[in-house]
């Protein structure tokens, strides 16, 4: 996951929460796709996702993968931002991770997600905080 191009090409979605909506069936797609998985159409409108949402499910990762060892324990949730659109994000700024629960209202904020050592790519995106 350390190629600058791989990080750069996802900037519109990760930095600006850009998504698309199918003009035929109104299915929301984040990230955008070439073809709508619901109706097969390939015409879309660009939209920007709202930043407020609700926790659908969550966990607290206590045994992290390589690259996240400094951020453990790591609360992560699926957050529903619009009806039919969910994103996976870390939950930041929790004084006590056990406060996390299904149904919690959260707001997305632009944050540093991970970094590849001293000289590698720094990955930015959104984390959720308590609304």
């Amino acid at each position: 996951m350390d190629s600058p191009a791989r990080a750069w090409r996802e900037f519109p979605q990760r930095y600006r929460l850009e998504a698309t909506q199918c003009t035929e069936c109104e299915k929301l797609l984040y990230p955008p796709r070439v073809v709508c998985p619901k109706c097969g159409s390939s015409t879309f409108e660009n939209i920007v996702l709202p930043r407020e949402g609700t926790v659908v499910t969550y966990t607290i990762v206590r045994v992290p993968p390589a690259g996240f060892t400094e951020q453990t324990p790591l609360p992560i949730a699926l957050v529903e931002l619009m009806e039919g659109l969910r994103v996976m994000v870390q939950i930041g700024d929790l004084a006590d991770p056990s406060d996390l629960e299904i149904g919690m209202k959260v707001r997305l904020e632009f944050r540093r997600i991970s970094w590849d050592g001293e000289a590698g790519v720094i990955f930015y995106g959104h984390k959720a905080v308590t609304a």
Partner: protein
Amino acid sequence: MRDVAVLGIGMQDFGELWGKSLRTIWAESAIAALEDAGVDSVDLITVGCMSPGLFVGQEHLASLLADELGMAGVPAARVESACASGGLALRTGFAEVASGLCETVLVSGVEKMTDVDGADATYALGTAADQEWEGFHGITFPGLYAMLAQVHMQRFGTTSEQLAAVAVKNHANGLLNPHAQYHLKVSVEDVLTSTMVADPLHLLDCSPVTDGAAAMVLTTVEKAKELGGDRPIIKITGSGMATDTITLANREDLSELGAVRKAAARAYEMAGKKPEDLHVVEVHDCFTIAEIMATEAIGLFDPGFGASAVEDGLTSMQGKIPVNTSGGLKSKGHPVGASGVAQAIEIVSQLRGEAGQRQVEGAKVGLAQNMGGSGGSSIVHIMEVV
């Protein structure tokens, strides 16, 4: 389509096999399967292996392994569907024999997982999730199943004690399996007091990191009758596969495993069987919650009733429908690419009446359910005594 039989099975000890390389553990199981089958040549080798590239830095694996067995020249293909790679190797071999392309196939699965450290193994397994939109945020494989568990608990009232009951049962079964990685009796309390890996899953809710291989020889039922001697002939009567969204974010219902439900429905239809016809079942218990959700998805229990079924002993060795008599991935170990083949081997052993202390009396119909990622793919096989 031609009728396909399992002619031979081969499995060695699963575990942390520091002294053996991937090629060695694979060859030992392959040779055991060929000896059990009584054949010394095959038309094809299929190898289920999730990630030799990340675990041992080796691609082009199937050719390497064919050569290791002295079979350079024979067609060989590695197939991959994350932790369902073994099941896919079996399904591929089944299709090759059923179609008439091959007469005899060596089906195998292998994973050598202990040549990397824990963080790298966690990363390698995590690549079964969507790297750009899930892995990017640091989610792990246990973390994804933990998210499914939270939903199951909230919707159906499933408890941590019920999850633990899966581990208790499977470790009890594993005590009777000489090839199992762990011969370790665990209690509900042991599970609940073990280290938290990803809430609500404790260490003992998780299958371990394992080195291991498993192999089978498939041929036509007709040829098996010629070669098989007095042993019962085990026919593969159903094979089903299905996929689902890899990303949990895109999955409409997080309380069920849709790929498992669809794969099982296809296998049942091909075999002309129903869940109540089964005598013994192996499901993909990579985590305790996975066994509960899998038993619901293959129709053994209604949605939401898989957890109480375990707690009530319905899936124990003496229960209504024994599940994971081998010890499951939980106790037997989970060398990810090998697990699907090892599950099928347990069913064959049971149907042959060769399961020793684990034998389910009178088992004539069995099912093996293998799963990739957090349910992004699943492969189900039904086998019967002819």
